[in-house]
Each structure stands twice: as structure tokens, then as C-alpha cells.
């Protein structure tokens, strides 16, 4: 059955209690959550019941069905739409009165704002949810996301977002939920990784079957590494150093470099024993923090991390330092685990360290790196395919022979990109110079680069053909160099 719930003000969500069992689906908590976190982009909710949710069913089969209290096997699902959409009956169709009924899938997808499943567990009932960031109050910034599909009234639709759910508290706690969110993003984004349901996540971390009471007692970071490894990723655990200032700086450089590469991070708050998924960031044109802490890195401009926290809501902004209204600050996230692909042998700390050392005394051909004393360094991973797409898209602004060589040079699947920009260039999405590092190089290779280029010329290193370093001076200097920004999307 489907029912349409028009929304013109936050209190309209309360009408959900007329459509579903308020106790079983914990509707008061859901209504409060929606009233607090959904903004006025949502003008209508299509309520679907019954809905068979694979993630809830995985916990129902292995846990809720064994309980003395009766739990339903059926979930409900809410689909969110903006202004202009409504449900017609006889025949049952979604439509926009202004554009006629029975639209094509692409028209529905264009406006579809995502879905939220409700599981019949009485408490913490918000299950598998993917909401477009535009739905959430105060969610702006650069966000990792992918298009998640849903089937609605015969339409195959999708929306861009990152998975979210509340923790079950018993069969899955915060760490399981953060793992689930990251792994669901991976299985939807990359065909390489299999889909893992909530109950699978609760089992993958242990050598034995962790049934009964065990999942509710939590898991260790070591078990989180096992969960990520079990589905074919290569988790790297990084903890913040408290010994000296440079160790602290390195930690945030690393965190941002992986995040800016499009890898969601499993964030650890070791004092609280809490875990979250870090999925984006918000940056400013102004330096954040104390002037004495300024290191001319991209991190110096980050104001917030955006996290998916099972105790709160998706894309929640977390400020650098504790502020009123914010449950915690970035400086309380003192470790993270990044599930990397296999062919990533050079860590972020190596890319940042190399970038700083090269900038300190570059080759004479790149003397502008020393002339411009205030260059801000940004490091991130891209694929050779993405790099070549970027070159093709900007081909008309680049040197012709440079474009040809960039498209033909043999490189591995993953590359570290280093971009240097003055603060003025940075605020206009321009850069001074760019380096491509071989992400398959070891950290003991002193010059792991394939390419260094600025507006005047390019240093080429054809590592696959063991060719010596060769410099190409462009026929005429390029007008500008554009920043690469293809891993995260700005909302």
C-alpha cells in the first residue's frame, strides 16, 4: 500500500502515526527526527508499507525472531519528494500536475530526494536510509556520495547520498553501523566489493560466531580492521600523535588527504568509545585556528568535518573545536581507519612529506615554487582514468603535446596528486603547479613522480619505460591551471 503525506510544515510529519503502528515503528522518535533534521525541501512523503528491507531482515532472521516478544518481519519505507509531486490513485501513479502524470524514470530521479526505511524494533527504528544532502538542515560542504537506487511504484529511481541508519543497540552498535555505512557505499559505488548486510557486519570481525550478547558489548578497532579486510579492502589504521605538534599536523593532513580522495573514514573517538563515518568536509577561504599553527596545508582552511553519526544524522557538521550545539569536535576524533584498495602502497603521509620537501628546494625549472612563499599544499588520490578525463575536459586550455603525452603515458590505476596554490588561486579554484606521484611506489623511492608541471612546462618521468627525467617547455605559458575536484561533490 502507498499513501501520500503532503508536508508544508515540520508538524505535518506527525500524520505518520495515522498510517503506521506508532509503537512498533517508534514513530514519535521518527517524527521528531524528521522535524529536527529535514528542511523545507521536502514537500511530500510517499509512505510504502509493507516493505521488505534486506538489512532489517538479516537481523530479524538471526536475532529478533528468537526473542520472546513478537517482532514483525515487515518494514516500512518513506520516499521523499520536493514541491510539485503528488500521488494519484486509479491508476496509482506518481506525477507532477504541471507536467502530466506517469513520468519517465529519469524525471522522477531528477527530483527524488531519497528514502528512509523504518524497522519494527520499537526503539531506534530508523533503518537503511539514503537522503540527498539538500534535504538535511545545515549539511553543506564537499561530500562523498554515490547514486543509490530504489524501486518506487514501477519506477527505478536513484538519489545521491551516503548511507545512514540508527544503531540497533543490541545486534549492532555504533562501530557496526559505521562499518555498514562505509561498506554499503563501497558495494554501491564499486562493483569490486560485495554487499554486506547488518548481521554480516556483526559477524565478520570475529574468528568465532559472535552471537548472543556479544555484538551489544561493542567491537575493537582491530575487529573493525578485520571487517573491512573480509570484504576485500585493505584497511589502514592511523592514530593521532600527541608527542609533538608536527605529529598532530601530519595526522590531520593524512585524514584530509584520504577524505579528499573519496575514501570514507571510520572515525574513532577513543575517549568516548564512539565510532562514526567521516564522509566530507567544509572549507573556508580564511585560515582556521591559530596563526602559529598555520602550515600552509589544505587542512588549515577546513572548518568542519561532515560525519554520518548513528546517534545523530547524516552529513552532520563537526567543528574543529567544541562549540555549543555540537555534540563533539574534530579534535575528539583521534584515530581513523581508511579502507584502501589493494594497489595503494604509498601512504598519505608520504605524499605530504614529499610535497613539502620538493617544494623546499625544487628543480630550477620550477623556481616559482620557492618564489611564491605562501603556497598551500593539497594531496589526494585519483585514478589514471580520472586524470585522463580531467585532461580531456581541459584540453583546450593545455599544451597540445602535453595533452597527448598525458593521455598516452603508462601509469598504474592509482596516483597521488599534489597541488600547490597561493591562497588567492585556491579561492578561485586555480593552482600554481601539480605533481602526479606513483601510488604503487614504496616510501623509500626518493622521486616517485610521473609528472611535475606548472604553467610554463612539464617534467616527465616515464617510469614504465625506465626513461630519464625529461623537461618539456610549453610553446607559450598556459593562462591558468585549474584545480582537480572530482572525488567529492559540493552541496
Amino acid at each position, binding site marked *: 500500500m502507498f499513501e501520500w503525506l503532503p508536508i508544508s510544515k515540520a508538524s505535518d510529519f506527525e500524520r505518520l502515526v495515522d498510517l503506521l503502528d506508532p509503537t512498533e515503528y517508534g514513530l514519535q522518535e521518527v517524527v521528531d527526527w524528521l522535524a529536527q533534521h529535514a528542511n523545507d525541501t521536502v514537500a511530500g512523503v510517499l509512505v510504502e508499507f509493507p516493505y521488505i528491507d534486506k538489512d532489517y531482515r538479516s537481523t530479524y532472521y538471526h536475532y529478533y525472531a528468537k526473542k520472546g516478544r513478537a517482532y514483525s518481519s515487515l518494514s516500512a519505507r518513506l520516499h521523499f519528494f520536493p514541491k510539485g509531486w503528488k500521488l494519484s490513485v486509479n491508476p496509482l501513479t506518481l506525477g507532477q500536475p504541471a507536467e502530466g502524470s506517469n513520468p519517465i524514470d529519469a524525471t522522477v530521479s531528477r527530483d527524488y530526494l531519497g528514502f528512509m526505511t523504518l524497522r519494527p524494533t520499537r526503539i531506534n527504528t530508523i533503518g537503511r536510509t539514503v537522503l540527498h544532502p539538500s534535504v538535511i538542515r545545515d549539511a553543506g560542504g564537499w561530500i562523498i556520495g554515490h547514486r543509490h537506487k530504489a524501486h518506487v511504484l514501477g519506477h527505478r529511481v536513484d538519489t545521491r547520498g551516503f548511507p545512514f541508519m540508527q544503531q540497533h543497540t543490541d545486534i549492532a552498535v555504533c562501530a557496526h553501523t559505521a562499518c555498514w555505512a562505509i561498506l554499503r557505499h563501497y558495494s554501491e559505488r564499486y562493483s569490486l566489493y560485495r554487499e554486506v548486510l547488518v548481521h554480516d557486519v556483526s559477524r565478520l570481525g570475529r574468528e568465532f560466531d559472535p552471537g548472543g550478547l556479544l555484538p551489544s558489548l*561493542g*567491537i575493537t578497532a582491530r575487529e573493525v580492521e578485520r571487517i573491512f579486510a573480509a570484504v576485500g579492502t585493505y584497511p589502514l589504521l592511523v592514530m593521532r600523535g600527541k608527542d609533538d605538534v608536527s605529529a598532530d599536523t601530519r595526522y590531520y593532513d593524512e585524514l584530509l588527504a584520504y577524505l579528499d580522495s573519496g575514501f570514507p573514514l571510520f572515525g574513532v573517538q577513543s575517549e568516548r*568509545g564512539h565510532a562514526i563515518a567521516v564522509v566530507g568536509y567544509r572549507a573556508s577561504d580564511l585560515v582556521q585556528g591559530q596563526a602559529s599553527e598555520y602550515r600552509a596545508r589544505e587542512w588549515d582552511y577546513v572548518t568542519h568535518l561532515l560525519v554520518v553519526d548513528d546517534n545523530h544524522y547524516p552529513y552532520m557538521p563537526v567543528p574543529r573545536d567544541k562549540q555549543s550545539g555540537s555534540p563533539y569536535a574534530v579534535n575528539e576524533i583521534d584515530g581513523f581507519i581508511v579502507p584502501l584498495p589493494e594497489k595503494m602502497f604509498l601512504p598519505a603521509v608520504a605524499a605530504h612529506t614529499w610535497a613539502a620537501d620538493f617544494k623546499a628546494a625544487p628543480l630550477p625549472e620550477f623556481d616559482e615554487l620557492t618564489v611564491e612563499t605562501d603556497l598551500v599544499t593539497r594531496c589526494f588520490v585519483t585514478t589514471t582514468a580520472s586524470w585522463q578525463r580531467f585532461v580531456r575536459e581541459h584540453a583546450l586550455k593545455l599544451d597540445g603535446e602535453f595533452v597527448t603525452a598525458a593521455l598516452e603515458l603508462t601509469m598504474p590505476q592509482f596516483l597521488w596528486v599534489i597541488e600547490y596554490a597561493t591562497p588567492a588561486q585556491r579561492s578561485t579554484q586555480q593552482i600554481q603547479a601539480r605533481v602526479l606521484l606513483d601510488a604503487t611506489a614504496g616510501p623509500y623511492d626518493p*622521486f616517485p613522480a610521473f609528472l611535475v608541471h606548472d604553467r610554463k612546462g612539464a617534467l616527465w618521468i*616515464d617510469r614504465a619505460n625506465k626513461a630519464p627525467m625529461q623537461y618539456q617547455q610549453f610553446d607559450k605559458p598556459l593562462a591558468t591551471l585549474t584545480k582537480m575536484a572530482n572525488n567529492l561533490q559540493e552541496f
Partner: protein
Amino acid sequence: MTQKPKLEELGSPLKRIKNLRELDPTKVSELESRLRSTYVRRMGEQAREARLRAEKLRDKILY
């Protein structure tokens, strides 16, 4: 009629760039030597510290 070389015999694609010059090997050697004494040395030190710190985090219980 001259036969075209096979793709595998073409070697580096950089050959297509006309205005290409090899860098002074002394300058390259100096740069690599400097990076060995800064970047490579620091990577060794940082790897040891990072391993120790990660081990402290591994047994933290998250709930």
C-alpha cells in the same frame, strides 16, 4: 614500402613531444640525494611511530 613499427616497439610516448630535453644528470642526482636525506629518512622514522600509535588504538572498544 616501409613497414610501421608494432605498438610494442614504439617505447615511450614522450617521443612525440618535440620540445623535450633531458635534465642535467648532476642536478637530478643532487635532488634525489637531498630527498633521500630528508623525505626517505623521515618516512622511516614516521613509519615506526605510526606503527606504535596504531597498536595502541587497536584494542580500544567501540560501542
